[in-house]
C-alpha cells in the first residue's frame, strides 16, 4: 500500500535489539505466512523497522481515514511523500509536517536540526524547491535550567539547519507546560513550490531503469553499530540510536543537485532516505510502482569501513535520496552530483518481476515481494474515555476570586506561550529567498509567489494541548478553526492542511480515545472549511515523564489572490475605529488566564458553533482582501484583553475600548475569556459601512468597541460607543489602563532566561 503519514516512535527501531525484537508473535507468524518460509535475520530486521509504528502507523491508519482528503485545487493527497495543492498560474504548493520529538529530547540541537533536514527532503522528493519552514514547539516550564537548555538547543538547531540551507523559517508556535518537561515536542512543517506539470512521484517504473543513490555517504547513524559497541544501559543505547547527525551543508547541496537532476528529465521517480533508510525507500518505491528492483548494497557509498549489509539497509544517515533514472542517462546524474561534491552510484535496476532483490556482492540478502514489507498489519486498539475528564469538567470558575485585571494582563503577556516570540524568530532567517511579505509576528506569515504574481500564500501552525487535554474533540476543532482564523487575519483563505498528531501510547485505551476524538474534531472542522488534509505525521509514545497532553498540531496553507492585499496585527492609524467581528463571548474554562494566573487547568470547553465561526472567518478574509480594514487579529490565548494589547504593541499605538458588561458577567471573563471566532479589526471610520455590509452578507455579529490612539491601552465597561469612537469607560473607572512600555516589558522575553 502507498506510503502514508509516517509515525515517529519514541524509541526507533534499532539494531540494539535482536533483529525482530519489536515484532509481536502474531506478526512473526504473518511474516512466515507471507514468505512461505522462515525470514532470515536480515529480513527480520527489515520487517521490524517497516512494521514499526514508526513506518507503518499500524495503530493510526484506520482513524486517519476519517480526515477529508478532498478539496478545491487538490493535486496530490496522502500517498506520496507530501500533498500538493494548486496556487494558481500553473504552480503547485507542496506541504508537509513531521515530528522529531524523541531525538530532540536526547540531543536538542541535532535532533531539531535533523528534523528540519528530514522534512525538507520530503518536499524535495515531490520535485519542489523548499520555500518556507514553520516550527511548532512544546517544552516544560522554562524556569527549569534543564528545560531552558533544551529550548535553546532546539531553537539553535532549527536555526542552524534552516538558516544554512537557505529556507526561511517564517512562523511557528511555542508553548510550555509541565507535561512536556521530559518529552518536548518538535514539529516542523515545510512548504515547497513546483510547477504543476513537474510534480515528481515516488512510484518506481520502467524495467531496466537505474536505481541511483545520491547524496551523503552512509554511516552507522541511527543504529547501534560496532562504533557504539561500548553501549551501556539499554536505555542509553536506544537513545543513542535516535541521534542522527545532520550536515546542513550537504543538505543544501542535495537540494540543488536533486533539483538539477529533476530538470534533466532523466529522473522517473525519487524518494528521500528517511526513517528505515534504504529498506524503506527501496520497498516503498517498488511497491508503489508495482515493479521489482535488483540492487547491490556493496555499491552503496560508505563513510565507514566494515558495515554489514543489515547496517547499510537500516542506516538513517541524513542527506540522501534514492532516484530511479532512465536507462542510459545515469552519467548525467553522476555529473550533477560531482559538480555539487556529492556521492552518486548506480546501485541497481528496476525489474519486471515485482520482486525486491537485495544483494551484497554475490550474496542475496533478501528476495521478496516489497508489498510484504509495506503492507503492515493494522490494529484497532481499544478506546475508553479517560477517567480524569469527568473531574476536570466539573470545575466551575465561578468560585474563583478575580485577579486584578492589570496584573493578570501582565502575567498573561509574560507567559511563554503568549509572550512575543521575537526572541525565537530573530534567530531564524525568515527573509531569505526574499518572498516574505509578512514576517513572523503576525497571525500568519505571507509569502509572495513570484512565479504566479500577484498571488501569494499564507502559513500558520496551531495547536493547543491544554484544550485537547480537556476535550480532545473540541481541541481538534479549535486547532483547525484557529489556523483558518489566523489566515483570515492576513487576508488568506484556507487551501490545505497538514498535521502532526503527538500523543502518548496508542496501546493505552484512554490515550487512544483522545486520539480518535481529536482526529474527529480536525476532520469535522476541515470539512466545514472545505479544506483537504494533504498529509501529516503521527508521533506516538510521547510519555517520558508524566505523558504529554494530547497535542495535535495543524499547519494550514492559505491562498491570496493578490499578495499586496494583506493586513497585519498592529493598529496603523490614530483615530481608526476598533471593532469586534464574530461571537462576543468567551469563557474562562480551560483558558490561559486560569492556567497562567490561577495555576488551574480545568473546566468544560464549549463546542464552538462551527458554521458561525467559518462565516466570521470568511467575513474577515473578505474585509482584509478588499482593503476595508487596516488591521486584523484574532482573540486566542488570553482573550480580547491580550489581543488588544498585542494590536497596540505591534502598532505602537494605544487604544480606548469599552466592552459590554451585560449579563453581570465577571470582568475577568469579559477580558480574558476565550472562544474561537472573535476577531479584532481596526478601520477608518469611513469604512464602517462597508464592513457592516460584509457582516450582514455573512450574517456575522459586528460591534464597534473603541478607537485607536494615545500611548495607553484603556479598557473599561460601558455601553457601546458611538460611531465617533469609544465613550469614556464606566463610572467605576477602567478595568485596564496601562502604558505601552509596561506591556512591551511584559511581552518581551529577550531579557529573561529563555
Amino acid at each position, binding site marked *: 500500500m502507498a506510503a502514508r503519514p509516517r509515525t515517529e516512535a519514541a524509541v526507533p527501531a534499532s539494531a540494539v535489539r535482536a533483529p525482530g525484537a519489536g515484532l509481536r508473535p502474531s506478526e512473526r507468524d504473518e511474516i512466515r505466512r507471507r514468505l512461505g518460509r522462515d525470514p532470515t535475520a536480515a529480513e527480520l530486521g527489515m520487517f521490524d523497522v517497516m512494521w514499526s509504528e514508526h513506518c507503518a502507523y499500524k495503530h493510526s491508519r484506520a482513524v486517519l481515514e476519517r480526515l477529508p482528503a478532498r478539496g478545491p485545487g487538490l493535486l496530490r493527497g496522502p500517498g506520496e511523500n507530501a500533498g500538493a495543492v494548486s496556487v494558481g498560474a500553473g504552480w503547485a504548493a507542496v506541504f508537509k509536517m513531521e515530528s522529531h520529538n524523541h531525538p530532540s529530547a536526547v*540531543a536538542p540541537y*541535532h535532533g531539531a536540526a535533523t528534523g528540519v533536514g528530514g522534512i525538507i527532503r520530503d518536499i524535495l522528493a515531490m520535485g519542489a524547491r523548499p520555500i518556507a519552514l514553520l516550527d511548532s514547539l512544546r517544552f516544560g516550564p522554562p524556569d527549569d535550567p534543564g528545560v531552558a537548555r533544551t529550548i535553546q538547543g532546539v531553537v539553535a538547531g532549527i536555526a542552524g539547519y534552516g538558516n544554512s540551507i537557505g529556507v526561511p523559517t517564517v512562523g511557528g508556535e511555542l508553548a510550555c507546560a509541565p507535561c512536556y518537561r521530559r518529552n518536548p515536542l518538535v514539529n516542523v512543517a515545510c512548504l515547497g513550490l513546483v510547477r504543476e506539470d513537474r510534480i515528481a512521484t515516488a512510484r518506481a517504473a520502467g524495467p531496466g531503469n537505474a536505481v541511483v543513490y545520491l547524496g551523503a555517504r552512509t554511516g552507522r547513524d541511527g543504529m547501534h553499530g560496532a*562504533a*557504539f559497541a561500548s553501549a551501556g544501559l539499554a536505555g542509553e543505547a536506544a537513545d543513542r540510536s535516535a541521534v542522527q547527525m545532520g550536515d546542513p551543508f550537504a543538505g543544501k547541496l542535495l537540494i540543488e543537485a536533486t533539483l538539477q537532476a529533476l530538470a534533466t528529465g532523466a529522473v522517473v521517480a525519487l524518494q528521500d532516505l528517511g526513517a528505515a533508510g534504504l529498506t524503506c525507500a527501496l520497498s516503498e518505491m517498488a511497491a508503489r510502482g508495482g515493479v521489482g528492483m535488483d540492487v547491490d548494497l556493496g555499491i552503496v557509498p560508505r563513510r*565507514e569501513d566494515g558495515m554489514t549489509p543489515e547496517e547499510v539497509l537500516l542506516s538513517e*544517515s541524513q542527506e540522501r535520496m534514492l532516484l530511479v533514472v532512465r536507462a542510459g542517462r545515469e552519467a548525467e546524474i553522476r555529473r550533477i552530483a560531482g559538480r555539487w561534491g556529492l556521492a552518486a552510484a548506480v546501485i541497481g535496476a528496476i525489474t519486471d518481476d515485482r520482486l525486491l532483490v537485495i544483494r551484497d556482492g554475490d550474496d542475496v540478502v533478501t528476495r521478496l515481494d516489497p508489498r510484504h514489507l509495506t503492507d503492515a498489519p493494522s490494529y484497532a486498539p481499544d478506546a475508553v474515555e479517560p477517567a480524569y475528564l469527568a473531574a476536570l469538567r466539573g470545575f466551575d470558575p465561578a468560585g474563583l476570586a478575580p485577579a486584578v485585571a492589570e496584573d493578570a494582563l501582565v502575567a498573561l503577556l509574560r507567559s511563554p506561550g503568549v509572550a512575543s516570540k521575537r526572541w525565537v524568530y530573530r534567530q531564524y532567517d525568515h527573509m531569505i529567498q526574499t518572498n516574505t511579505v509578512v514576517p513572523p509576528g503576525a497571525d500568519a506569515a505571507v509569502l509572495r509567489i513570484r512565479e504566479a504574481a500577484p498571488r501569494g500564500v499564507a502559513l500558520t501552525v496551531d495547536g493547543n494541548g491544554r484544550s485537547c487535554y480537556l476535550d480532545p474533540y473540541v481541541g481538534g476543532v479549535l486547532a483547525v478553526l484557529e489556523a483558518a482564523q489566523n489566515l483570515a487575519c492576513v487576508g488568506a483563505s484556507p487551501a490545505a492542511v497538514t498535521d502532526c498528531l503527538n500523543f502518548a501510547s496508542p496501546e493505552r485505551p484512554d490515550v487512544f480515545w483522545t486520539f480518535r476524538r481529536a482526529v474527529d474534531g480536525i476532520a469535522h472542522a476541515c470539512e466545514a472549511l472545505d479544506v483537504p488534509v494533504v498529509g501529516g505525521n503521527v508521533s506516538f509514545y510521547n510519555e517520558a515523564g508524566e505523558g504529554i497532553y494530547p497535542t495535535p498540531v495543524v499547519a494550514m496553507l492559505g491562498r491570496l489572490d493578490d499578495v499586496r492585499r494583506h493586513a497585519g496585527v498592529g493598529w496603523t492609524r490614530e483615530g481608526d475605529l476598533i471593532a469586534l467581528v464574530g461571537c462576543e463571548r468567551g469563557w474562562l474554562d480551560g483558558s490561559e488566564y486560569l492556567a497562567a494566573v490561577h495555576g488551574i487547568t480545568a473546566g468544560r470547553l464549549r463546542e464552538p458553533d462551527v458554521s458561525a465561526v467559518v462565516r466570521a472567518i470568511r467575513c474577515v478574509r473578505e474585509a482584509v482582501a478588499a482593503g476595508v480594514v487596516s488591521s486584523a487579529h484574532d482573540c486566542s490565548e488570553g482573550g480580547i484583553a491580550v489581543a488588544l494589547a498585542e494590536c497596540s504593541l505591534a502598532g505602537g499605538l494605544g487604544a480606548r475600548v469599552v466592552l459590554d458588561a451585560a449579563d453581570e458577567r465577571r470582568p475577568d471573563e469579559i477580558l480574558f475569556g476565550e472562544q474561537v471566532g472573535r476577531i479584532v479589526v481596526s478601520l477608518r471610520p469611513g469604512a464602517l459601512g462597508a464592513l457592516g455590509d460584509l457582516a450582514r452578507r455573512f450574517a456575522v455579529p459586528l460591534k464597534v468597541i473603541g478607537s485607536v490612539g494615545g500611548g495607553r491601552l484603556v479598557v473599561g465597561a460601558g455601553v457601546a460607543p458611538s460611531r465617533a469612537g469609544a465613550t469614556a469607560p464606566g463610572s467605576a473607572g477602567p478595568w485596564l489602563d496601562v502604558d505601552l512600555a509596561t506591556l512591551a516589558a511584559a511581552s518581551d522575553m529577550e531579557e529573561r532566561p529563555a
Partner: protein
Amino acid sequence: MPTVRVIVTLKPGVLDAPGQAIHKGLAALGHAGVRAVRAGRYFEIELDGTERLDDRVRDMCEGFLANTLIEQYRYDIV
C-alpha cells in the same frame, strides 16, 4: 588554582562534517598528504579549590560541555 583543559570530540563513527570540510580545504590549499581531520572543541577552565577535582570536571563535561551520546571528552589538570 588548578586549570583544567578539556577536549571534546565526536565519538568514532559519528559524522564529522566540519572535519571533512576542513580536510577538503587543506587539500585545496595544496596540503597533500593529509589523511584525515577530526574537529573538536577545547575548553580551558580555571577552578577554585582542589577538592574532588575529577568529580567536578566529569560533572561539567557530562552535564554540559559534551553530549555523551555522540561526543567523548578527555581532560588534564595543570
